[in-house]
């Protein structure tokens, strides 16, 4: 039956062999059913091997080193930047800045805005607009910024089916708005937001648009220009790359106008006791030794995804998501938080089960080898909006099979019976 699903990646079992961890067994010999990819994705062998090759044969510091190893390492590192630029359609490779994760990328923007002068300066009377479905990493930086600068933080609300409530957009985005920052795909609700439409409105009033693409980059073809973003962030470990690296893309005009963030290392033009001047982008925002082997690994990761094709990955996610929504609907007492139409959402599905706390759901599933996340998924305001304190979340990726969804649904039935709900 599951073989009739359309949109699945071909030869899924072969593709799964690219990911060594997927053949692991857990306690009691249970095979791993990894449904926590929105939290972090698993890594294909090619990413691991590329990193190992770099560490074993080409390791050296970059930029500053003039010797052969230094040239090889710099080329591999900057090659990672080229690959990322191509992956997101960046007009210039210099607009791709490596950070340590998506959180740092978002904080970089909020932090440098705190010290910006001129047009970009933020102060009393100015407003920053975010949404109620943001990840904490796209909330706290703006709370800190607006609090510190005496500006006001405003929020897009959510509709009952988990979409952005755009009915008051003209009320929210006004001449006072300096920044609109929002997630492209929600990590809790799965919602895909109409980023370009909101960006258009924001640009009408002269605001800059920050897009958190942490969940979009793994799942959708991303074209930064078409997205309408002025700045866009995502994280390496969710796109089958390593931890320790994130990406901030920004339009050159905006990046050039932001003051430096962290100081030191290669971010300078010259340093004297009197004063220092700063390098151009991207180096201006990359203080200290960058995540070298991580950039090399991330380059291999986005190449791997591009090779499979982001359109195909998106189709696979949609097929799996549709199948999962169907399966979950058969579990008594289960309520999905977020849109129910698979074609309009990403692959993270959060749900509640009457009478069993999400921790307990996750625990029982784990005893069957099924890895899901339970908690607030770093999206407390969104949980609050739906009157729940936490939820269970399954999240699929390119290596997820329909059989794994079947295992999840069976596991949920078992959970209910374990807690004597049926």
């Amino acid at each position, binding site marked *: 039956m599951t073989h009739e699903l359309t949109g699945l990646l071909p030869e899924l079992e072969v593709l799964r062999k690219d990911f060594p961890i997927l053949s692991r067994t857990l306690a009691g010999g249970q095979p791993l059913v990894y449904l926590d990819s929105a939290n972090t994705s698993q890594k294909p062998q090619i990413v691991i091997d590329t990193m190992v090759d770099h560490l074993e044969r080409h390791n050296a510091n970059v930029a500053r080193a003039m010797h052969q190893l230094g040239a090889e390492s710099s080329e591999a590192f900057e090659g990672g930047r080229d690959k990322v630029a191509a992956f997101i359609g960046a007009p210039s490779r210099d607009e791709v800045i490596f950070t340590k994760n998506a959180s740092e990328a978002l904080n970089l923007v909020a932090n440098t805005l705190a010290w910006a002068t001129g047009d970009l300066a933020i102060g009393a009377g100015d407003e920053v607009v975010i949404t109620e479905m943001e990840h904490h990493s796209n909330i706290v930086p703006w709370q800190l910024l607006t609090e510190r600068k005496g500006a006001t933080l405003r929020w897009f609300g959510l509709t009952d089916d988990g979409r952005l409530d755009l009915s008051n957009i003209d009320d929210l985005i006004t001449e006072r708005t300096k920044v609109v920052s929002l997630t492209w795909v929600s990590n809790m609700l799965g919602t895909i937001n109409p980023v370009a439409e909101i960006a258009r409105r924001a640009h009408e009033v002269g605001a800059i648009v920050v897009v958190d693409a942490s969940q979009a980059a793994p799942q959708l073809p991303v074209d930064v220009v078409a997205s309408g973003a002025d700045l866009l962030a995502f994280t390496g470990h969710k796109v089958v790359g390593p931890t320790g690296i994130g990406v901030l893309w920004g339009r050159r005009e905006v990046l050039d106008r932001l003051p430096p963030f962290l100081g030191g290392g290669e971010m300078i033009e010259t340093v004297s006791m009197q004063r220092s001047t700063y390098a151009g982008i991207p180096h201006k925002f990359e203080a200290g030794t960058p995540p070298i082997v991580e950039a090399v690994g991330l380059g291999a990761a986005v190449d791997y995804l591009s090779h499979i094709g982001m359109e195909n990955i998106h189709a696979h996610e949609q097929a799996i998501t549709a199948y999962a929504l169907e399966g979950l609907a058969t579990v008594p007492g289960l309520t999905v938080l977020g849109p129910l139409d698979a074609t309009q959402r990403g692959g993270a599905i959060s749900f509640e089960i009457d009478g069993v*706390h999400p*921790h*307990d759901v996750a625990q029982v599933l784990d005893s069957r080898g099924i890895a899901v996340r339970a908690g607030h998924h770093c999206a*407390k305001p969104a*949980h609050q909006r739906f009157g729940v*304190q*936490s939820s269970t979340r399954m999240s699929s990726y390119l290596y997820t099979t329909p059989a794994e969804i079947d295992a999840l649904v069976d596991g949920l039935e078992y959970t209910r019976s*374990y*807690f004597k709900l049926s």
Partner: protein
Amino acid sequence: MSQELDALYQEIILDHYKHPHHKGLRDPFEAEVHHVNPTCGDEVTLRVHMADAPDGVLRVEDVSYDSVGCSISQASASVLTDLVIGKPVDEAMAIHESFLTLMQGKGNVEPDEEVLEDAIAFAGVAKFPARVKCALLSWMAWKDATLSVVGPVETLEESK
């Protein structure tokens, strides 16, 4: 696998979960605290009421709480109140200490049923590092609330 689960979800725990003791916030109280498990969002608001007994010993008169959370965190709050209400504060602190030792023992600590009573059912939780925090949430809240009243050294003088 069901065995492992059963070691965690002892019947006693599930009973306390379904029918928690002493739940709800009550007056009088000397201190109220609010604790959160940042990772999962479990929360507890907890009040302590203490008074000198006729023998001059400071006793736990009441522990009342309101909480949201998983079976483990709910049951452990219930068990906590059973264990400490009516006990001298010193003795209650000793019980706390031994529960903490049990929870942090990674499953290698033998619980003392004399002291811990129903709480020995939590011995299985110690083998699940992610759940230890759940079991400790209300216990930490209770200690925090109590110390905010009696101060780090429990002397009768400081407690008033």
